[in-house]
């Protein structure tokens, strides 16, 4: 197998990075192995579970399906980038309060997908949250606490409860 490497220049969480990697190496592995950003997780390796979700040039992508060469020159945002200097943001606090994370393995991808949704639609309905997170599988929560967390981050705590209750 050829191990030819190419220089990959890209911006990760606002920081310019250069790594030398095989051009077909998965962005997921570049992040985890070359940059040691292990917050991004692998769940299935085929774009089904969304655990490896990152934002690339403002789009939500499964980093297990993105070859390194495609990320050349791109702006990539990972779960680590959602909390500059490790400071919890409103979305994190809502997940903490409403139980949006259980085992935590889907959480980084879920947070990135939720942040992506809120970036485009700051006041989503429950139906829009469901759609926005449909590419991210969680096996622990049954999603209910995740919906509540995202709605709370967007609308405030009480409004989130009402939206969930109305949907019932």
């Amino acid at each position: 197998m050829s191990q030819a490497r190419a220089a990959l220049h890209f911006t990760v969480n606002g920081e310019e990075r250069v790594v030398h990697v095989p051009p077909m190496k998965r962005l997921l592995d570049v992040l985890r192995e070359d940059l040691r950003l292990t917050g991004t997780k692998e769940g299935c390796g085929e774009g089904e579970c969304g655990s490896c979700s990152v934002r690339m040039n403002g789009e939500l992508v499964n980093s297990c399906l993105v070859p390194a060469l495609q990320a050349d020159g791109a702006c990539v945002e990972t779960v680590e980038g959602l909390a500059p200097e490790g400071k919890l943001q409103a979305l994190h606090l809502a997940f903490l309060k409403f139980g949006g994370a259980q085992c935590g393995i889907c959480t980084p991808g879920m947070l990135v997908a939720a942040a992506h949704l809120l970036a485009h639609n700051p006041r989503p309905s429950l139906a829009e949250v469901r759609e926005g997170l449909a590419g991210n599988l969680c096996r622990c929560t049954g999603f209910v606490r995740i919906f509540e967390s995202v709605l709370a981050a967007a609308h405030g705590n009480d409004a989130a409860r009402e939206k969930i209750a109305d949907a019932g």
Partner: protein
Amino acid sequence: MNATAKTRIVGAPVPRKEGVDKLLGRALYVDDLERPEMWHGITVRSSIPRGKIRSIEFDACIDWSEFAVVTAADVPGKNRIQLIVADQPCLAENAVNHCDEAILLLAHPNKHKLREAAAGVKIEYDPLPALFSIEASERGDVIVWGEDNLLKSFTLEKGDVDSVWANAEHIIEGEYRTGAQEHLYIENNGMIAEWNAERGVTVWGSLQCPYYVFKSLLAVFALTEDKVRVIQTETGGAFGGKEDYPSTLACHAALLAMKCGHAVKMFYDRMEDLAATTKRHPSRIRHRTALDRHGKLLAMDIELATDGGAYSTLSSTVLSRATLHAPGPYACANIRLRSRAWATNTVPYGAFRGFGAPQAIFAIERHMDEIAAAMGLDPAELRRRNFLHTGDKNTTEQEMREPVILDELLERALVESDYYARRAGFARENPTSAVKRGMGISAYYHGSGFTGSGERTLNSLAGVEVTREGVVRVLVSNTEFGQGTNTALTQIAAETLGIHYDDVTMAPPDTGIVPNSGPTVASRTVMVVGKLIERACLQLLAALGEHAELGEKFTSAEFFAACDRYRAARGKVESLCRYEAPPGVYWDDEKYRGEAYAAYAWAVQIAQVAVDMVTYSAEVEEFWSVQEVGRVLHPVLASGQIEGGIAQGIGYALYEKVVLQNGRMANNQMTNYIMPTAEDVPPIHVYFEEIPFTHGGYGAKGIGELPHDGPAPAILNAIRDATGVGVCSIPLLPEDLFKALIAATEFEEPAVL
């Protein structure tokens, strides 16, 4: 501590203990860890379901000197995984008994070289006939395990079943089947191992039960206890799927580490994890039930069979729990239960949330609706007439000494779901609609903790210590994998000690540090181990009062000052307690008589389902779950357990099908093994009734498994209500529902098409 006493921290929605690390992406799962000079391992597996290994050859194009190669011949101790019966080899010796059985292990410094190398190992077999179903195993013309393929059997007799049939008003029979289910934890199995001639074996991994892994490593490496160390890393979901399998994986990684002299990481990809690791046991359950004309149960004759797969692993205990849950939450004077677990040539089936109960409860709760339909009774009313009540005796003659409030749970579920009004509305609308709706009920219990004498045999030890740095550490081998172990146990410790939640942390889940407080299974942690922590904290307070002048009332600072005085005078500040069975408990393992479980959690669930008669897809539109789980220690985490369990139960009923071809999982990808997504899970309404259990940590009973037991029968009962067709097997995908509805309307024009 009185279980009903007012509390500060128990019952409050404190933040999840390890929550911040998980949200920041800092929590370290096994694949996030590296060791110096670490190699990577891969498993070479059988491609046939049963046969003798004739030869193993290595592709000459590969430089094998770069690789570490391990076979069964390299095992220094016993080549057997240590569980209940040690029949499963760590690595196949000269024969294989299922597809994807581990035969040979490879390690290399570069993980990208492993796949090609694994393909370069050519194994030739002399195939033997293989079994793929309960029926094939029962026939006994091919014997694949022991003398008769029978992994385990139980027979229970209560009263005199045979005296009833002749005079019974109604006799209703049914056969119910459930399929395999995959855990689909989002983090696959993974392990890192190191081996050293002086220090022995150390493993880090994604696992539920550190001391199970410990026991297998002791045997496989023939080491003494001081030479084995097992450390749980952050674990990305388990659901029973990381109860027994990690023992095998830990031995594999450690064998490679011994061979190559480096740390070795083995991390499965999804396809390997799905194909090679355990699943929920498929079952076939037959009910024959006698009732009087009022719908009162007179006799229940139940025959229960499970497919255990190629090795015994946990099949005997899964069968035991299935058996004890098979008659449902009903009072009946005459019960006969015959249950058997059969060996076949598939990957061994194992623990999965519910542990036999979901299969048993599917059968009895579907059967109750068939009885109701046959007798023209309201399904809720039939249940009400037969529910167990406080003081009744169940199948094992266990007296229900704790309050049983099934009537209240049912009533609340009916009211909250507006059951009768909705059913009536659907009955009006369905005849002219291409989407037919219905409501379905399930009512059931789940026994908390190990069955029978299990907790006494485990003899768990747990406690707390206070470090020099002024932190209380909870000392348990119970693990966090999402359910909230860390949070609930630290809540209990902080509450009992009268200090802040932030002053308490978990000791690392490391067998070198924590005592054996038993496995993290069977909904036992908060009830059983939580009680040990409560007792250990009270014991510590008493010791600090006696030896370190801790008063009746104190601040956190005063507490830690007393701990410093205690340490200065008497050494380390540690308090451990060992399990003590509640008084008056007896259990006869031979006759299966007595207290099957120390406590029972109870639930009534209702599903509203819509069946599209054009696409044959069934969709759960709304779901209600009312349960009594003792005291709720954390409202948010408890609701999360219920909702998550229901979502898995919906998957079990309608989405998740393990397709076996020649005994091998054919759909071993997330692309074609389908679990419910954010778009599929309906609004779920969760209600708790709380009756504190005296012998559980702060009154808690088991909660984790309960919610998974009931959705499948509730959903299929709702489909019966919607379509008039009682389907008796799951999973029920659209193609299955199509077949069932067509079969039921043979020679008739479909009503709506």
